[in-house]
């Protein structure tokens, strides 16, 4: 991944839902942000579920499969890796991922310009 040039503040750490997702509007795109306190990680992937064509991934259940942190689509339950966006059930499908970081309690999503 190339270093993004712009970091956009979307919310504070307190706004995130532990072990679940929230959706942020970043430069017109819907980004699902997941906070997994058990492993102290924050991930960001696209909110768009390619199987249902609906913007729902932020509303999926999080967890791990074989050690990989995942979210399950709330519509048809496919699992997407939170690290890579890859669909575990269909290797040909992946959703975009976004760099995300925490700076002084702010959650920032990186956008390449």
């Amino acid at each position, binding site marked *: 991944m190339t270093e993004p040039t712009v970091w956009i503040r*979307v*919310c504070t750490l307190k*706004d*995130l*839902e*532990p*072990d*679940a997702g*929230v*959706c*942020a*509007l970043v430069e017109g795109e*819907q980004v699902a*942000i997941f906070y*997994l306190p*058990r*492993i102290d990680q924050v991930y960001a992937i696209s909110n*768009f579920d390619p199987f*249902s*064509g*609906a*913007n*729902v991934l932020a*509303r*999926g*259940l*999080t*967890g*791990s*499969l*074989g*050690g990989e*942190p*995942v979210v*399950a689509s*709330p*519509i048809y*339950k496919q*699992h997407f890796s939170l690290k890579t966006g890859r669909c575990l059930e269909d290797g*040909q499908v992946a959703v975009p991922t976004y760099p995300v970081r925490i700076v002084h309690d702010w959650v920032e999503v990186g956008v390449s310009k």
Partner: protein
Amino acid sequence: MQRKKLVVIGNGMVGHHFIEALVQSPCRNEFELVVFGEEPRPAYDRVHLTSYFATRNPNDLALTNLDFYRSHQVTLYLGERVIEIDRSRKTVYSQHGRAESYDLLVLATGSYPFVPPIPGHDRPACLVYRTLEDLEAIIAEAAISRRGVVIGGGLLGLEAAKALMDLGLETHVVEFAPRLMAVQLDEEGGAMLRRKVEALGLIVHASKNTQAIAEGSFYRHRLEFADGDCLEADLVVFSAGIRPRDELARKAGLEVGPRGGIVVDDCLRTSDPEIYAIGECALWNNQIFGLVAPGYHMAKVLVGHLNGQTTYFAGADLSTKLKLMGVEVGAIGDSHGRTPGARDFVYKNECSGIYKRLIVSSDGQKLLGAVLVGDTEPYDALLQYYRSGLDLPQQPESLILPALHGKSGGLGPDALPASATICSCHNVSKERILELIDQGVEALADIKATTRASTGCGGCAGLLKSVVEAELKKRGVQVKKDLCEHFPYSRQELYHIIRTEEIHTFDELLTKHGQGLGCDVCKPAVASILASYWNEYVLSDRHFKLQDTNDFRLANMQKDGTYSVVPRIPGGEITPDKLIILGEVAKKYGLYTKITGAQRIDLFGARLEQLPLIWKDLVEAGFESGHAYAKALRTVKSCVGSTWCRYGVQDSVGLAILLENRYKGLRAPHKIKMAVSGCTRECAEAQGKDVGVIATDKGWNLYVCGNGGMKPRHADLFATDLDTDTLIQYIDRFLMFYVRTADRLQRTAVWLENLEGGLEYLREVIIEDKLGICAELEQQMQRIIASYECEWKKTLENEEILRKRFRFFVNSDATDDNVVFVTERGQIRPATLEEKKRLKEIPLELEAAS
């Protein structure tokens, strides 16, 4: 190594299946692969073509995509028909003038729908039914038609008729033979099928020979029959059989059959040893196979052949099982009983519309064929008897007679010989599964992934599971009932742990007894156990993250990410004022309304951020959550009972309301449905429910473990003539015992079937208190009932939860612009992808509607 060039003509289901199998086979690298498809898109599922009418999304039918071809380095030319094969130059030419040389050529050109050459067959709106483009044409014509007619009452014809009915046309089917599906069904079976489809509104004209299509007087066309009758319609769909697409082969001088079809040998080779043919265009042993399974089989045989294996095509069994317009139909082997000396066993039930016939050998030992209409439950077992040549049981009729005492004459997995085919789509035998288990592949998911068994039509999934489980058990391998990879326990064991260790949260349970982060299987299962034991608020900080899609926002998520809202209407009784409120709320928020099967009203199309507003209005008017989103008690359906009905003997509505208010909010392994009927006429259909109550003149009869839905089960009579207090006591105990001991997502019907000792044992536990737990079960139920609160009322009181969990964006008040509605029959519905694209070109306007 010099790679050989292999060209495939045709990118239908079989052509694609061939490529898919070839690129995964050892000889993949010996070939450069080029594929021509004349349709504009890569292979799609023609078998389920009718589903296109519901979704209108071609992607739902797609079997593959361009990426697949790209990533496997297969050149795919779409929308490009091959018009000539020059065998002397070993080159094919496309309609666009492209020339591709080949070393090997595979013809997978399929078939075309036969249109009888009668006068008027080419009039406008006289269509066929095979490709997505055909469907588009049918949809377009249907929009300006009132009545449609399908010529041909075979399998495809009835599919097409279903499509026309779904498009809202008055639909007729004209069949040349005296009955429907004449190829597969015998006379009685055809007649039963006809009665059933006619009951659904289809109008069938049998023994009609259409001789001409002329200008109609009332509708666009007039079909003229040989017997002098006629029928008018606006839209005509021909479904009078298929013909092999052999014109290229014919022109190239390959041998074709007298009635069409490219002649192939057992290796699928045509008369030119460098050219092969597979699928519906191939003529093997004077036979064309117009089903997908034999085509797939041909593709596999050819891939084997190219890999130097000695595999041969030896014909295919045309046995078939399907659902036509919701009617189950199955035919196996000699379904007409034409084998000399064949004998019959017949079961016919005109009340339920079921016909089953076994055709057995003259000595009664072997199954030669079968016809099933209205109930294909015995199909899998019968197919095994037929294919494996097993000896039939002493009383073959037990295979088709309805189960009178809960035991059916099914075929256990152990009785199957090693050669038995478990999955016919991917041709997986029992032997192959045993081999894998020998090699240590024991997980069902791995066996599926390796063999692809049950990933085709999926019809064998149950059989596959039972074969694997029985085999593992036989080998002393304990069949793991682990919930998932995070907990090495069954649901029942976890329930016990939570109860005895007084665990209140998922995190505590995971830390003490599990590993990893949890998943969408264990989280909702544990949430359900915690709720049925401690009954804490499900959206609290410690529980909300465990909730499945619907519980998560206390509403039912629909395909476009919006929600539906179902307020509780206990017993289905509602005052006019409340009914008006529902209408007003729906109107205010622009929701689609529909009456549910459970005597309630469902409001669709609510955006996430609208849910609190809608519920504020509903709660203020006195409504409570209906828990339609939860694995919990849904509804207690009732008939109007003795209060109004001339026949009612008890107040069924009163009891239903009592029961619904008692058990509302009870979280369980799966949803629970109940019903109360006021007399033996059973208008509330209580015997299809988890808990059913039917009034008698002395009290109440209690039925348990019934089920509707995918696999209906008639409830068992549990106790008779109970007074109301005893009835409630039994139901309390029954429900709690189920909640404690069932597996995750196991309805009461399946739970009982797996309960050792069955109904008798259940009676001993619930009525005689054999385990000495009834007092505890009752106490636990009492605690749940006492701690009930309406989840929506509680949620509305919590500003923080409303702000955090019912806002679409964490950083904006905008709404999801991908949610778009259009109007249909005076109400909103989600726009299809096509409609969204079209509407996006004309911006604005739409948001206002939502």
